[in-house]
C-alpha cells in the first residue's frame, strides 16, 4: 500500500486571501517551494509544517492528510 501526504494549503491560503508572495515573505521561504508544496511535489520539513499550522492557525490534520495513491 503506497501512502502519500496530501495537503490543503492552496485551498486554505485562497480562503484566507493570502497571495503566494505574501506567504513566502511571512514564512521566509521561496515562492517555488510554496508552489511545489501546493502541487504535492515536495513534502515540507516538520519545522515548515509546524510553521504552516501556526501561520494558518489550523489543526495539523486540517492541512495534512495521508492518502492512498
Amino acid at each position, binding site marked *: 500500500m503506497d501512502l502519500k501526504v496530501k495537503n490543503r494549503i492552496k485551498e486554505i491560503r485562497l480562503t484566507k486571501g493570502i497571495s503566494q*508572495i505574501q506567504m*513566502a*515573505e511571512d514564512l*521566509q*521561504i*521561496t*515562492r*517555488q*517551494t510554496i508552489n*511545489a508544496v501546493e502541487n504535492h511535489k*515536495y513534502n*515540507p*520539513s516538520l*519545522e*515548515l509544517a509546524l510553521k504552516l499550522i501556526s501561520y494558518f492557525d489550523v489543526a495539523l490534520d486540517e492541512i495534512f492528510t495521508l492518502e492512498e495513491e
Partner: protein
Amino acid sequence: MKSWHIIIACTLVFSMSIGFYLGNLMVPDLPVGTVVAGIIGSVVGVGIVLGTIKFRENRKKHNVPDVDERTWINIKNFYAISLYIVLFGSMLIVCLLFALGTETIELGFLSIYLLILFFLLVIGTFVVKRQ
C-alpha cells in the same frame, strides 16, 4: 567593518600570496604583464560577481529569500548525483584514453578538465537553485 569582510580580505591576501609563491616557484621568470593581467582579471571577475549580487538585491521588490530548505535539498541531491557522474565519467575517460594508447596526461589538460568541471558545477548549482 563586518567580520565576514575581514575574513574575505584575509582569504584574498592569503590566496594571492600562495598564488604568487607557487607561480614564482613554477615559473621563476614570469612576465610582469602576465601577473598584472592575472590580478586585473581576478579583480574584475570578483567585481562582476559582487556587482551582480548588489544589483539583484537592489532590484528585489519583496523580502523573499533566495534559498530555503527545499533549495538546500535540491543542491545536496545535485552534488550527490554530480559526484557519481564525475567519478564514473573520469573513469570512463581514463579507460578510453588507455584504450587509445595514451600513456601520460599533461598537467595542463588536467587543469583545463578540472576548470571545466568546476565551471559546470557552478552553473548547475545556479540552475538547481532557481528551481
